[in-house]
């Protein structure tokens, strides 16, 4: 019977093309509006490193002022001082550890007519690439030894490798930045984690840095912080050395811990470290260390914009209005088909048979609405991209994956079925004798 009902549904849709088109359009527009926002929210709330979510931990220690917490109610600082990042990294107590920060350099491309340009870079310890599963196209990262010996090496992103070296395997090539020469040791494959989970303190949706270089090199070269820096007391006279020795936070610290035992050990190590620092007169607050998984960290930092949540409620309301419209249209359709319905009842269709017939027809309309809705979602995303063309990072939010396409179609069908319930119930309660008494 399913195929029969399917055929009847298609026939009925063809027989009332205008009405059917209106219904499909109403559902598609509602779905399009909803899914555009759902998509953006989905990308924002994604966890690009979910496959390592149970082994990666963002590290926080509370070096903040004795008088007030970094954030209410009692949140430890979201970044780390150089002192602590350096000490924790060098202790090497985790399976892997990464201390890193965002900075900036002036890139001086080879060739006489090429103009130098400003570029954000990431100074990081060696484990960064292995720990975050960063994909390489050519070469590799540097090792701990290079870290220690402050070797002048860089890893390039695929896009800047494209710009500087035409996309070829540039391992071994030289790159000049701020009048110093670096050797390329690795080139990444395209890699755009959204959100940029390893550093969400600045815009979490912007592109990752395009140049990576050793942490120790950046420190000895006195690289400044290119991201947010917060201090609870002045860092005092003495330039860069004083800044390094200050309680200012500007670094991101991550560790990889493979199991509960390692986590337990590391937590104890952190407590011991802070207690020891307290003896030296630092860490005036109570012990307040945190190890957060990427998911917890993204959640804690509220990466999903509140505006997006508000937009989402508006979009859902809009979808509901579209569905109310669809209910009206379906009712009109049922009324027009009273004849057909009572005739089928007279010829032996039970209420449940009619119910199936009409629900399947509604499902077909939902399916069409969903497919068209996907198209409209795509247009909606393009629209957002055009409106916010000046913000580079926006395009990182405008992806549509299979799960979203599935959600769109499922939502459309469920919506259509929901909208069809009342009209279908009305159809089923039409009496078999309703229109047969035509004299």
């Amino acid at each position, binding site marked *: 019977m399913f195929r029969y009902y399917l055929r009847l549904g298609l026939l009925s849709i063809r027989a009332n093309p205008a009405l059917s088109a209106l219904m499909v359009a109403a559902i598609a527009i509602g779905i399009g509006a909803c899914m555009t926002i759902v998509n953006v929210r989905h990308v924002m709330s994604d966890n690009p490193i979910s496959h390592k979510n149970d082994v990666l931990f963002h590290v926080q220690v509370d070096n903040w002022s004795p008088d007030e917490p970094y954030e209410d109610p009692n949140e430890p600082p979201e970044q780390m001082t150089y002192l602590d990042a350096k000490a924790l990294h060098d202790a090497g107590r985790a399976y892997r550890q990464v201390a890193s920060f965002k900075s900036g350099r002036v890139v001086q491309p080879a060739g006489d007519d090429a103009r130098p340009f400003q570029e954000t870079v990431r100074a990081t310890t060696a484990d960064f690439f292995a720990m975050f599963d960063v994909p390489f196209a050519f070469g590799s990262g540097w090792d701990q030894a290079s870290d220690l010996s402050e070797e002048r090496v860089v890893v390039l992103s695929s896009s800047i490798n494209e710009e500087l070296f035409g996309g070829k395997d540039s391992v071994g090539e030289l790159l000049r930045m701020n009048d110093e020469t670096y050797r390329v040791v690795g080139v990444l494959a395209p890699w755009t984690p959204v959100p940029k989970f390893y550093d969400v303190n600045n815009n979490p949706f912007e592109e990752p840095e395009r140049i990576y270089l050793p942490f120790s090199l950046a420190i000895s070269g006195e690289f400044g912080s290119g991201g947010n820096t917060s201090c609870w007391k002045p860092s005092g006279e003495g330039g860069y050395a004083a800044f390094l020795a200050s309680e200012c936070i500007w670094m991101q610290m991550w560790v990889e811990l493979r199991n509960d035992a390692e986590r337990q050990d590391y937590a104890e190590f952190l407590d011991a470290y802070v207690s020891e620092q307290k003896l030296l007169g630092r860490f005036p607050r109570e012990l307040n260390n945190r190890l957060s998984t990427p998911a917890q960290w993204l959640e804690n930092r509220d990466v999903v914009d509140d505006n997006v949540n508000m937009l989402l409620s508006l979009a859902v309301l809009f979808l509901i209005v579209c569905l109310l419209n669809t209910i009206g249209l379906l009712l009109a359709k049922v009324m027009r088909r009273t004849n057909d319905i009572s005739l089928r009842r007279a010829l032996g269709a039970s*209420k449940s048979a009619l119910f199936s017939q009409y629900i399947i027809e509604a499902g077909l309309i939902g399916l069409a609405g969903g497919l068209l809705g996907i198209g409209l979602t795509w247009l909606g995303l393009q629209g957002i991209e055009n409106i916010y063309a000046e913000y580079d990072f926006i395009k990182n939010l405008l992806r549509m994956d299979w799960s979203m396409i599935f959600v769109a179609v499922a939502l459309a069908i469920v919506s259509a079925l929901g909208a069809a319930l009342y009209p279908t119930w009305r159809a089923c309660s039409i009496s078999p004798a309703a229109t047969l008494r035509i004299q």
Partner: protein
Amino acid sequence: MLKMKSVSKTYRTDMVETHALREFSLTVDEGEFVSVTGPSGSGKTTFLNIAGMLEELTSGTYELDGRDISSLNDRERSKVRNEKIGFIFQSFNLIPELDVFDNVDVPLRYRGFNADERKRRIEKCLDMVGLTSRMKHYPGQLSGGQQQRVAIARALAGEPRFLLADEPTGNLDTNMAESVLDLLAEINDGGTTIIMVTHELTLANRAKRNIFVRDGQVSDGPPELHFAAAANA
């Protein structure tokens, strides 16, 4: 066997109550061909609708094949309608989006026959009403008489034991009406019980039994008698 005992049907609208049937009692045996006549508004269609379980009765009892209809739920009623009863309506009531073949197919679909069985039955019935060549036509492409014959084929396709016809020739000219009557007589000869409402005396006389409905009540006897009585009243 169809057996109604003291059946009443009352329509209530905001303003008035209409007693369409009053203490209506009638028994129709297997294989009968019954014509139903009576003045307009006397309750003939109401009787047929109740007989065909298209409407509920207000009071009284109705047994079809020894089963009390009031005890059946929607599914069972639909099944009885589908399997035992064929309807022919005055205004042919074909589905315009479906071609002739698919129109005749409708009751068979609800019956759950497989495709071969349906095809066999549809072809047989269309052959009986002489419309095999119009299988792929749509109702809008047929004459009134042809449409009515499609409706008859549809009523016969399920091989029902009862055929209920409400003025089956009302919209046809005399020749066509006669040929439809020939067809009904032939079907009745095959054993199908037929109850036919008609306004036309000559057609009523071709039935084996005549009943007359007046003010929602029924009496047996040749229609001339009643027509005369009605005229004198």
